């Protein structure tokens, strides 16, 4: 009894103490606190950000920045909740797939006013400038870097299998990956993406095969306005692609998403990986691979010798509900110029947004060399824009991922998949 009452008393006391402490607001000495929320969180990147933020705070004594790092899986949802509630968020990581919905809902502030006098605009690459301003001239975010696919591969494994160069086309990939595949040794050819965002690699393969007919402003469209899924070459692409799964991938890759793919490569069990450059930093830290065992090659081409590089990006924006828009813009400007930007893109191995960074040693050697090759051959490696800012993009991802898996487990044929995707996009464009 005394035991229980004192326990309860302790509980109440704690609760009361917290009630008092919990209501602490911000400092009331005139200084400004910005809350910055990231979305594509990972521990290494958070560390880099903290460092940059610290520098910013030193240059701007009246401003403190608190970095909030939710786990990636829920981050976008959490950001949505915070934006909707209109509290506790000033600077936010905006992705090319979230800028559409966020701005439609009026959650993002147009920073073109605050950034009008910023001298950093001149230093931005063409792509960066293009993405920083949307069709109506508003600036909802400033990109911090770009993603772009390249082929990660194991130099030792392809040598051992008798090949003297990495595959350049999808057919060659199939050949090499199947040769390397040896399940009895737990060695596999291709890190197949069957889980979340499975659709992305499938679409890249299709795009490579229909590259000649593609509309570069909308990589899901052919020049004549039909979807890329209606082209006969798309069926060829799927044939090769799904054969990769049958002959050259670990069976569990049916459920592999980003983390599993990267892990499959970096723990040494899989020889080929198609991924963004940020993986470079991760693999460099791998305990299972040494630096001379791997490097990257340019994106795989289709039968006509061309490949489509889909642009993807993310950046920093300001919440409409923020009460410190000027300071927020200052932080964003800081992060988008000079050393801060270069440090960020180098440490996270992203394609840089600054013109002078792209020519540095860092970006022209080693695993980055393939990106140089791709940049220097824009007619072979054509950059195109996918309609990632459509408001139905997340719905598309869920639908297409499920259907890819259905093909993988034999519940749907490849042609049915193409028909379904063709119908989906044709329908959406009609209603738009």
């Amino acid at each position, binding site marked *: 009894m005394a035991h229980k009452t004192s326990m309860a008393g302790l509980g109440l006391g704690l609760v009361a103490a*917290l009630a008092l402490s*919990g209501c602490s607001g911000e400092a009331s000495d005139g200084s400004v606190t910005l809350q910055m929320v990231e979305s594509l969180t990972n521990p290494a990147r958070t560390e880099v950000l903290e460092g940059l933020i610290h520098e910013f705070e030193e240059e701007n004594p009246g401003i403190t920045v608190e970095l*909030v*790092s939710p786990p990636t899986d*829920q981050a976008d949802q959490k950001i949505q909740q915070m934006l909707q509630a209109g509290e506790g968020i000033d600077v936010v990581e905006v992705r090319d797939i979230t800028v559409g919905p966020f701005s439609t809902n009026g959650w993002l502030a147009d920073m073109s006013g605050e950034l009008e006098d910023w001298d950093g605009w001149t230093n931005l690459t063409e792509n960066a400038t293009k993405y920083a301003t949307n069709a109506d001239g508003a600036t909802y975010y400033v990109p911090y870097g770009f993603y772009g696919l390249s082929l990660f591969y194991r130099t030792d494994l392809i040598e051992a299998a008798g090949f003297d160069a990495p595959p350049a086309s999808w057919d060659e990939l199939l050949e090499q990956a199947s040769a390397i595949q040896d399940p009895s040794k737990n060695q596999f050819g291709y890190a197949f993406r069957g889980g979340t965002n499975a659709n992305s690699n499938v679409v890249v393969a299709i795009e490579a095969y229909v590259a000649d007919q593609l509309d570069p402003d909308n990589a899901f469209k052919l020049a004549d306005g039909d979807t890329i899924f209606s082209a006969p070459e798309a069926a060829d692409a799927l044939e090769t692609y799904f054969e990769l799964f049958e002959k050259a991938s670990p069976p569990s890759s049916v459920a592999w998403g980003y983390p599993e793919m990267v892990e499959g490569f970096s723990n040494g069990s899989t020889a080929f990986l198609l991924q963004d450059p940020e993986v470079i930093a991760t693999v460099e830290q791998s305990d299972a691979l040494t630096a001379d065992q791997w490097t990257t090659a340019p994106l795989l081409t289709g039968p006509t010798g061309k490949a489509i590089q889909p642009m993807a990006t993310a950046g920093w924006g300001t919440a409409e509900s923020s009460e410190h828009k000027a300071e927020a813009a200052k932080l964003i400007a800081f992060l988008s110029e000079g050393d801060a930007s270069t440090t960020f893109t180098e440490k996270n191995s992203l394609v840089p947004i600054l013109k002078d960074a792209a020519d540095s040693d860092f970006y022209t050697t080693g695993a980055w060399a393939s990106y140089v090759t791709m940049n220097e051959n824009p007619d072979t490696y054509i950059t195109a824009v996918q309609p990632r800012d459509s408001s139905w993009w997340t719905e598309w991802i869920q639908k297409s991922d499920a259907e890819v898996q259905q093909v993988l487990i034999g519940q749907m044929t490849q042609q049915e998949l193409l028909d379904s995707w063709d119908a989906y996009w044709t329908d959406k464009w009609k209603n738009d």
Partner: protein
Amino acid sequence: MINTETNPARVIRVLVLAAWLVITVFPLYWITVTSLKEPGAIFSYPLTYWPEVFSLENYVGLFEKAQFGTYIGNSLLIATAAASVATLIAMLSAYVLARFEFRSKGALMMAFLVTQMIPAFIALGPLYLLMTQLKLVDNKFGLILIYIAICIPFCTVMLRGFFANVPDALEEAAMIDGCSRIGALFRVIVPVMKPGIVAAFIFNFVNCWNELFLSVTLMNRDQNKTIPTALNGFITSYNIDWGSMSAAAVLTIVPTMVLFAFASRYIVQGLTAGAVKG
């Protein structure tokens, strides 16, 4: 106690019990072994069931890289506070529901039962907005309040059963002696029901300690996070950091395991009507 048991029956019993023990404990063994391997050795093939090299690297990394100490502290604080208050409140309601008859009693019990049917997700968004209005988002106190609310229904129902088995004679005697009802409750009945109350408290504590979705939704800043949120963080970022995650898992499981072990005696005792003998 009837002790007749044929030999075959005994063999089966021992075998099954032993098998179940192995099955139950094996995952824990496996994850502990994984956490003690060097990070690179986790993916060694063929699998090793005992670390070739023992390493605390994963654990050290937790506290250095991931502020795990803060998370443990938060979880401890929140779970203890919420469990205590919830048990207390549940006791009050359970007492009244056990002792008295009144018109809305059935409805009330039904209302408690229905709370178990509601999938938590449906309420997440509105809950976030509500907490924002109350200025309790990203605030340990806010999370505690919600956990209290969540623990109350089942705890009340559980305690009601225990109360029903304690004869009114006890408190009536006390009240005749001049105690108020609530005084009688705490001075006379509670000591008799101690095992049951401890069982209820532990049940609540474990639920709060392990709760994931709400704490991820409501807590933003790092200093407010609880352990499950941290665990979630390890798998969803760059890659699945099995080394850190297994270390974190072990650190999460061990305290609850110790608590449960210590209290399993209480739990069974508390749930047994036999705790109150005439």
